[in-house]
């Protein structure tokens, strides 16, 4: 069974998924951050493949992408770094990145490497659902890789149902019409959008992402979906001075603290 399905079966709420950019802050930070996250209690990890032109990302993730590329990060190197990751790490791992590096790597080859590495899912924001289902579904499916699709406040009910139909694993609920980045709280408009999706009773579970920065927003995400995804706020943390493990552990426990 795909580890993503297993997670959603075992844990009903407050699922915490964390994004970070591979190769940031240092080229070889990747594996250490994954382990620190699992130890600190993250439920799922989205490993960012750095790209020169991350058009759906805000300043924090943009800068981490630039830094990672300057450090020399490549997709090949990332797969090398993750080579033995499944010896230790048990939680679901996803790769998140833009379409061009994946296409240049070769989609089939990419899926094969993901499968060998123990990657459970992929998030590619600039791969639209229609192109995915027509061109890539069969190869993703062959390697049991889940392609996680996004819905946004501008997505119509009809479209959300269509996205739900071709989704596996979970649906990424983009919290606002915005690029990635942190906000302190959700607005009423956002809450009514979360409710709209909740009332649609989709076949896939949902996680809310974009704009989740603290315990308050994470808790709200958990009220209206199965949990939340944190990106920019965490990337800030790993960019800080000090002991990485301690920083990560403190950040995660602050989020989850009862």
């Amino acid at each position: 069974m795909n580890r993503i399905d297993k997670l959603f079966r075992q844990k009903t709420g407050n699922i915490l998924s964390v994004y970070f950019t591979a190769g940031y802050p240092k080229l070889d930070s990747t594996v250490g951050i994954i382990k620190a996250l699992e130890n600190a209690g993250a439920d799922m990890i989205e490993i960012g493949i750095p790209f020169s032109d991350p058009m759906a990302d805000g300043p924090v993730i943009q800068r981490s992408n630039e830094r990672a590329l300057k450090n020399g990060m490549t997709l090949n190197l990332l797969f090398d770094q993750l080579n033995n990751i499944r010896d230790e790490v048990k939680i679901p791992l996803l790769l998140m990145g833009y379409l061009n590096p994946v296409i240049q790597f070769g989609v089939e080859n990419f899926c094969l490497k993901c499968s060998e590495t123990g990657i459970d899912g992929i998030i590619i924001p600039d791969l639209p659902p229609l192109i995915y289902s027509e061109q890539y579904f069969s190869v993703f499916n062959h390697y049991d890789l889940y392609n996680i699709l996004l819905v946004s406040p501008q997505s119509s009910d009809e479209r959300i149902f269509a996205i739900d139909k071709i989704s596996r694993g979970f649906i990424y609920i983009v919290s606002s019409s915005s690029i990635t980045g942190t906000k302190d709280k959700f607005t009423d408009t956002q809450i009514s959008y979360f409710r709209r999706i909740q009332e649609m009773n989709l076949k896939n579970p949902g996680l809310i992402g974009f704009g989740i920065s603290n315990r308050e927003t994470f808790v709200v995400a958990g009220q209206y979906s199965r949990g939340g995804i944190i990106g920019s706020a965490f990337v800030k943390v790993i960019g800080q001075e000090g002991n990485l493990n301690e920083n990560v552990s403190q950040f995660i426990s602050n989020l989850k603290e009862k």
Partner: protein
Amino acid sequence: MNFNVDERGYYGEFGGAYIPEMMYSDIKELKDNYIKILDDEKFKDEFHSLLKHYVGRPSPLFFASRLSSYHGTKIFLKREDLNHTGAHKINNTIGQILIAKSLGKSRIIAETGAGQHGVATATVCALMGMKCIVFMGQTDIERQSPNVLRMKMLGAEVIAVTSGNKTLKDATNEAIRDWIGNPVDTYYIIGSVVGPHPYPDLVTRLQSVISEEMKLQVREVSGKENPDYIIACVGGGSNAIGSFYHYLTNEHVKLIAVEAGGKGIKSGETAATMVMGRPGIIHGSRTMLMQTDDGQITEPYSISAGLDYPGIGPIHSYLHKLKRVIFDNVTDDEALEAAFRLTRLEGIVPALESAHALAWLGKHRFNKEDVVVVTISGRGDKDMDTYIKYMEKGIFNL
């Protein structure tokens, strides 16, 4: 042969709309409405009336007799440099601002490299009383300050982009990010035949006025039914496709697109996408793209800020593949020399971009009776600093 975009938004294997879900509703709204609006009689009347009375169209087709003697052929210049704001860019912004109005949008965003598209956008926003925000790379702001001041005088807010390499491609990313964040009231006026479908087709149609006029003018001015050659510079490719459009199905007309070779292909410092690139995805479109082996988009180089885009319009990738258009490139130095030559022989200071098209005249042997049309996409006012620098060095003091 059909060179139009198909119903799915592709030119052969190129084009499409590789966009995040957050942009889907805006792109769909435009896709569902643009043809309807363009075909609407009211739109056509307003568009053509503004082109005539505000922009000053039709732009002349001028027989350049001294340049013709120099190159031993008959050269005609399509004078887009005489348009209001000094380049072909305004043909597109007039059309798109009318579309924005018709879609009920109140806030306009645009990207700009050299500043010409930014100025053309700020101009139509002033004309229509719309809020205007222009994204421009910090590097470009520093090297194109007159255009920045001009946009500000026109009432636009110019936002300095400090991400990536701080140039055109990053300004485009930032405009896309702004649009993602403002999906309801905002319309994005893209400046070339690039970006997700339907933008390449929309901008192609709006710029096709260039070759529409040429068809009448060539007959009138040269006496021949068709030109033998049409030469245009290409970055994203909007003046080139505008110049070629109505001749695409006429195989007797040779179409030449000239890319910026920069310091030469071998130097690596170049913007010649067709030579250096391979298919990839940039700004929502599958097209020829300058990139690393790892799929990271690289920063092109050219002396001309309007040509240093790492991609190219998907229609050009298609025309290149079909060999309907010949793509070649000239270096910075060749372009500079051609700019000085045109200035001295005809009293016309061309934009550095247009100088690339002119430079190709020296790379080809024409017949004496050939009718050769060169599109002067813009005027050289914005490039005076560069020209003066080279004049003072004495290099091109012809």
